[in-house]
């Protein structure tokens, strides 16, 4: 069993003009389901295609067209639910959410209001070593994405691109368990990490692959605890929903701004109007999206074109049997098996590619050393070159070879950096390179002794100083290393220097 004991972080407190306030945040994440075809049509989901090329008759709502559910998208939603330790509903159903908009060709979005496919689950959001927020998931439902309206091509005309129309989304709805802007960003990050591990969402926020609606309210200290005890929302403040954010930074800024806006209104004796708002990153403020008169009545009702979705427990079990190791488990295992620090384990499990790479390097070798090399040398170099780990010129097997040479004392750490550079630029088997280029560490004490003797003999003044101040022995070690081209084993050099100087 995975041991996931952690302490709860303190909620963010904002000092108002009159008193302190706490934040209460719930999120709806729209995650595009990783699938080649749309939710109810066979059209492609490829990003960046020419406008209106990934559109079927169903997508553009031709008369008489009918939706047919893409079973793979259902599987992806179930896999996501299992990854969030959530209840999988064997019976769910699709509803129509009706509203008029040019990028919504049917005049309704097919969604799951009344009977979502996934029920309650949870996400552990780490906020530091041993500190984490448990965020409860209320539900996940499948729904269609809308198309895109384009208003900036022509001064008088608007255009629509239906490529995205009907692409499958998972809406992941949290409980209001998030207590600050940093937690909100960390929650999105953690969710993204899990989805990417599961392969159910690419999580590319720039492409709109993962978008967040954030519900923010503020309350006086103590109120939230009353809510948690009773689950009675009346203990909490009125919330505003900030729609459609696709950047972690903007999410944090928007929450911070929105909380302060609400506090200012409340402290002035005003009250919060429940509404939908948009964050303007240029101005750094949120503003109301629509007035109450324009408030939509979505007239949800069960979609009569689709039968209730019935899935079998055995099918769910089959998906459960193929679940990958998830971030929490992987991190715990890296700490336990490879002796990694919490921080290193977090860094190495952030992305699945990195974790896989590290594991290949560390397997059967010194885990800590492997972690150092992956994080410091490899990641550092990749970042400098702007490359992804998948494109790394140094393979896990090559880096593993380097780590192995260090562990065996065949090369020093310093030489290893040179070796890494050679492998990075020229490729090749590290052991063979070391052999061919004479990079092996000199461990022959006779040779080292000769070098030490020579340095001592050449620098009598330094010897005297060192005898007064033993810290200067390092100078001799450095000189010996220099004389041996860095190949002398540093420990052996140190021992001999100390002995010869009589320290």
């Amino acid at each position, binding site marked *: 069993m995975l041991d996931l004991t952690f302490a709860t972080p303190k909620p963010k407190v904002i000092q108002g003009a009159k008193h302190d306030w706490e934040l209460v945040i719930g999120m709806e994440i729209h995650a595009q389901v990783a699938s080649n075809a749309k939710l109810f049509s066979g059209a492609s989901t490829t990003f960046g295609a020419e406008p209106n090329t990934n559109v079927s*008759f169903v997508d*553009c*709502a*031709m*008369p*008489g*067209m*009918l*939706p*047919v*559910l893409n079973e793979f998208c259902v599987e992806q939603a179930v896999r996501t639910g299992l990854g969030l330790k959530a209840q999988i509903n064997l019976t769910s159903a699709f509803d*129509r959410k*009706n509203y*008029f*908009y*040019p990028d919504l*060709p*049917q*005049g*309704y979005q097919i969604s799951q209001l009344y009977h979502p496919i996934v029920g309650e689950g949870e996400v552990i959001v780490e906020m530091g070593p041993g500190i984490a927020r448990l965020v409860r998931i209320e539900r996940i439902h499948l729904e269609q994405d809308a198309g895109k309206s384009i208003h900036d091509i022509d001064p008088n005309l*608007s255009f*629509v691109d239906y490529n995205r129309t009907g692409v499958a989304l998972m809406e992941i709805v949290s409980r209001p368990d998030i207590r600050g802007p940093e937690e909100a960003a960390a929650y999105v990050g953690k969710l993204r990490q899990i989805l990417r591990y599961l392969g159910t969402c690419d999580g590319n926020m720039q492409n709109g692959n993962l978008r967040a609606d954030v519900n923010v309210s503020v309350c006086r200290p103590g109120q939230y605890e009353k809510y948690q005890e009773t689950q009675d929302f009346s203990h909490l403040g009125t919330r505003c929903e900030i729609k459609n954010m696709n950047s972690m930074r903007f999410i944090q800024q928007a929450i911070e701004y929105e909380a302060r806006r609400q506090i200012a209104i409340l402290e002035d004796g005003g009250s919060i109007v429940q509404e939908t708002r948009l964050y303007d990153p240029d101005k750094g403020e949120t503003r109301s999206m629509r007035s109450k008169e324009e408030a939509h*009545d979505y*007239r*949800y*009702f069960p979609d*009569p*074109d*689709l*039968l209730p979705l019935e899935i079998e427990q055995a099918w769910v079990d089959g998906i459960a049997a193929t679940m990958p190791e998830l971030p929490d488990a992987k991190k715990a295992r890296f700490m336990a098996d490879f002796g990694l620090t919490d921080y290193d384990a977090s860094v190495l499990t952030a992305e699945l590619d990195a974790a896989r790479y590290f594991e290949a390097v560390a397997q059967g070798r010194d885990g800590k050393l492997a972690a150092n090399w992956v994080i410091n040398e490899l990641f550092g170099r990749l970042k400098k070159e702007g490359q992804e780990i998948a494109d790394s010129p140094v393979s896990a097997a090559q880096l593993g070879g380097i780590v192995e040479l260090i562990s065996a004392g065949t090369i020093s750490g310093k030489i290893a950096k040179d070796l890494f550079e050679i492998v990075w630029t020229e490729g090749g088997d590290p052991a063979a390179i070391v052999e061919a280029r004479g990079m092996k560490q000199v461990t022959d004490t006779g040779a080292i002794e000769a070098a030490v003797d020579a340095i001592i003999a050449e620098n009598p003044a330094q010897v005297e100083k060192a005898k007064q101040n033993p810290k200067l022995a390092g100078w001799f070690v450095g000189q010996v290393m220099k004389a041996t081209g860095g190949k002398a084993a540093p420990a052996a050099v140190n021992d001999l220097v100390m002995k010869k100087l009589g320290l």
Partner: protein
Amino acid sequence: MTLNTLTIAEARDALRKREITSVDLTMSCLTAIDAADGLGAFVHKTPEIALEQARAADARLAAPGAPALCGIPLGIKDLFCTKGVPSQAASNILRGFKPEYESTVTTRLFDAGAVMLGKLNMDEFAMGSSNETSCYGNAVNPWRRQGSNVALTPGGSSGGSASAVAADLCLGATGTDTGGSIRQPAAFTGITGIKPTYGRVSRWGIVAFASSLDQAGPMTKSVRDAAIFLQAMSGHDPKDSTSADIAVPDFEAALTGDIRGKVIGIPREYRMDGMPAEIEALWTRGIEMMRDAGAVIRDISLPHTKYALPAYYVIAPAEASSNLARYDGVKYGHRAKLAQGDGITEMYEKTRAEGFGPEVQRRVMIGTYVLSAGFYDAYYNRARKVRALIKRDFETVFAEGVDSILTPATPSAAFGLGEMASADPVEMYLNDVFTVTVNLAGLPGVAVPVGLDGQGLPLGLQLIGRPWDEGNLLNHAYVLERAAGFVAKPEKWW
């Protein structure tokens, strides 16, 4: 003899024996159609397509094994999308719309070698019971009251289909039935029409009215024709999620004419107050015919019948309001000319105000209302509960051994066009009183002509069957048809 007066079964046999050709048969129908513009049945004629299909059918008929419908000229209700041929659900909002695809039903028919003569008139979006809501103007019933020149409705919504079949303009026609739109016009025009079990026939490519109720079916000159035609339309379609993956039996083979020992239910709730004596008498005669054929007649109760019509007129408009949202002027069909400064809201409002007729607008508004926040539970949810109870009523009597249920098809004979113009819309809705229960319960129902009223107009009875039991249902209808011996034809005036 003119070939267009043949039944499908007769023509099939003659075609297979090479006694006639599909081209001659098709020409005969095309001639009849051209002489029948006064009926307003065809809204779009496709003679080139028809003759091309007829020639292909004749080639196919040269070898044995051609399907039953090979070479049979049919009319297609305008609600069916037919590739490259105007398909506009008799609505101005789809003016000029030519689909790039062929509905599953017409694909099946054409694959079987059927010939399309053209598109048939109907009520706009299948909303209506008299064909008067069509953007093309109404179709006319070929029947007239004795000694009267008053133009009568062919019924609706499949009024063009009914008129065309009754006037021998085609050998059969497709219809669709959401609340009685096949059975009521069939009864008004003295022909046979069957609405199959919900899920028997694919809805793909048929312009949707109320998705949970819509079902296509054949309108024909005989029960045997209905069996042959339905056979060709039916079957699972993976493109329609509500289409059932259930084997289609040989419906024609089910027409044994033997119903001895079968239990026919007579629901007491269908004996409405103020029902015309002629309808009552027709029903009684039908009961006697079934009894004489050896069936066991049993009085049954379908206690929730009286709630069916109100439930239907909540559910159907609710679904329609959503199904018709796509007609917004953005993608295809009509778009209103906009004034300077008009935005998207004005485009929607003007387009839909111009494109939809008053009855469609009424139902869209009713549907929008019953689904809106605060009214959903009182209307839509309650109607769904009523629907479940109506379904249970039928399940109960079928479980008690009833094989089919005999009722009137309509509360009256065909009425005059324009007669209901000033009436409360609810009066028009009462036309569906005997038929909507069948749609709400998803059951198969067939209207069979049984007699003429005092003014010489046809009257029909309805038989309701068990789900997926169209074979037995058609056999019961076949017995009724033979016993009634309805052979009358409208006197040609057009």
